[in-house]
């Protein structure tokens, strides 16, 4: 009796970008969908850099720019290669009005907004509810068990984030290892809009993204980031968990050091800490993508390890994978077939999309860099800075001699075999990205 009352078409676990996009796709097709969020509201357990990407977001919310809580439109991407004290910064600026690539947002506001939109379109949102396990009968996922009650459905979609204990429970995913995730810590620092405009050389509502290499993370598989919000700056970094374990480093100590770096310190000076946060980033890439579907179940977003770490894409992969899972659920409901075979459409559509194509393109990226971390993220960033140090120093030493000294240093710093290994790693990596 109770079971019939609690039966709906689809249950989506997790009210982040993947889950919301999935649920709204299903609701728009006229099907019943319950979205279960463990936090007090959607976004309350979520952390990212962050910016959301305009085009993928429009695929789910065509007019989001009119009403969503957006902070600033990104007009500049800066790549800062930090030495111990010095820095080389490359910047790309594009102010074309019509071409918004991304917007900085605050997840606590933006995800909440997305969830409200989903509710308007018929999604039943259940907040403050943790799904403890999946109900499996006759090889089919048939529902979810929460602390209070059981809910039943034809399909359950797991958008429960990087830790996805549920995908693990039913064997779609094995245990993550410390090489597969980056631990990220972040601070949101309050600054007046005027100060932000001044320090980042932007106008009102325009923003800037910093991608930071080196500095306190020199030689480590870690990157820093900075995003401008309306009246705050988000600054943080992510380091592969295995690296933190091996070096016994506290992630927030690295962040403190990053904030003290001469390139960064003036940007956040005198700002007041509004919020500190931490989160795991799934970084395993293509090789660590779990089994994505089973009878009555699909996995999307971070739970499926859908992150493109080179391009800092995650929310877009989450949204689009959620949408594809939602479309697949609608097709399956139409046929009344929830078998593994029926839901394999999800995998096929993912393979046809940029999601699996991009993950495949970068399948060897992490292992390639991990094999030469101290070189690619330590030695060479330092060399870039020492080149500019050489180039800008005026000291009455003839320039030709300086150039040759710099070139020679590559061969005296390290052995020839090391240089060869770097070269080979780069060739292999480029081959894997560009060819196969």
């Amino acid at each position: 009796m109770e079971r019939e009352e609690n039966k709906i078409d689809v249950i989506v676990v997790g009210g982040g970008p993947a889950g919301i996009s999935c649920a709204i796709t299903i609701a728009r097709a006229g099907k019943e969908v319950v979205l279960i969020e463990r936090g007090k509201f959607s976004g309350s357990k979520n952390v990212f850099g962050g910016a959301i990407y305009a085009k993928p977001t429009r695929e789910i919310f065509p007019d989001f720019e009119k009403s969503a809580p957006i902070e600033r439109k990104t007009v500049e991407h800066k790549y800062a290669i930090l030495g111990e004290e010095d820095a080389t910064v490359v910047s790309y600026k594009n102010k074309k009005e019509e071409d918004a690539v991304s917007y900085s947002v605050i997840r606590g506001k933006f995800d909440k907004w997305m969830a409200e939109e989903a509710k308007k379109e018929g999604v039943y949102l259940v907040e403050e509810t943790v799904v403890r396990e999946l109900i499996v009968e006759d090889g089919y996922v048939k529902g979810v068990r929460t602390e209070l009650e059981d809910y039943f459905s034809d399909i359950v979609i797991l958008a429960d984030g990087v830790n996805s204990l549920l995908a693990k429970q039913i064997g779609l995913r094995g245990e993550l290892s410390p090489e597969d995730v980056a631990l990220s810590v972040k601070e949101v620092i309050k600054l007046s809009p005027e100060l932000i405009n001044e320090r980042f050389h932007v106008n009102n509502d325009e923003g800037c993204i910093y991608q930071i290499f080196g500095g306190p993370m020199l030689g480590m598989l870690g990157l820093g980031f900075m995003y401008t919000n309306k009246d705050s700056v988000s600054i943080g970094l992510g380091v592969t968990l295995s690296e933190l374990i091996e070096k016994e480093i506290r992630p927030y100590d690295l962040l403190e050091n990053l904030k003290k770096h001469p390139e960064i310190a003036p940007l956040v000076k005198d700002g007041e800490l509004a919020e500190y946060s931490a989160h795991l980033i799934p970084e395993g890439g293509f090789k660590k993508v779990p089994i994505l579907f089973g009878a009555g179940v699909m996995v999307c977003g971070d739970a499926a390890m859908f992150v493109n770490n080179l391009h800092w894409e995650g929310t877009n992969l989450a949204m689009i994978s959620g949408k594809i899972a939602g479309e697949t659920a609608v097709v399956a409901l139409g046929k009344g077939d929830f078998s593994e075979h029926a839901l394999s459409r999800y995998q096929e559509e993912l393979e046809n999309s940029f999601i699996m194509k991009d993950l495949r393109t970068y399948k060897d990226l992490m292992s390639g860099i991990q094999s030469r971390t101290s070189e690619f993220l330590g030695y060479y960033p330092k060399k870039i800075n020492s080149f500019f140090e050489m180039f800008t120093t005026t000291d009455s030493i003839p320039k030709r001699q300086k150039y040759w000294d710099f070139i020679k240093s590559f061969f005296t710093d390290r052995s020839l075999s090391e240089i060869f290994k770097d070269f080979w790693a780069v060739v292999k990596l480029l081959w894997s990205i560009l060819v196969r």
Partner: protein
Amino acid sequence: MSNLEDKLYTVKYTPDSESHLRPVDECCRVCKSKVCTKICPAGVYEWDEDKKKLIVNYENCLECGACRIACESSSLGWEYPKGNKGVTFKQG
């Protein structure tokens, strides 16, 4: 070095009366690295040498899950806090 307490002071928590993090004492006693005491971004874990036991300041947990994956013996009992408990990020 950095004042973690000041950082955690900015985070909104609704603590539960019982811990959602449950280390297995026998495993901790023989654990060499005590890695959870080092990598946790909220400093949740401290080793009590006298009692040979982990102190778990679960109220400060940011729910990232790093400790679960880092745990040397994969023995740490880790689950999400109850639906209305734990951390609430306003900025995220």
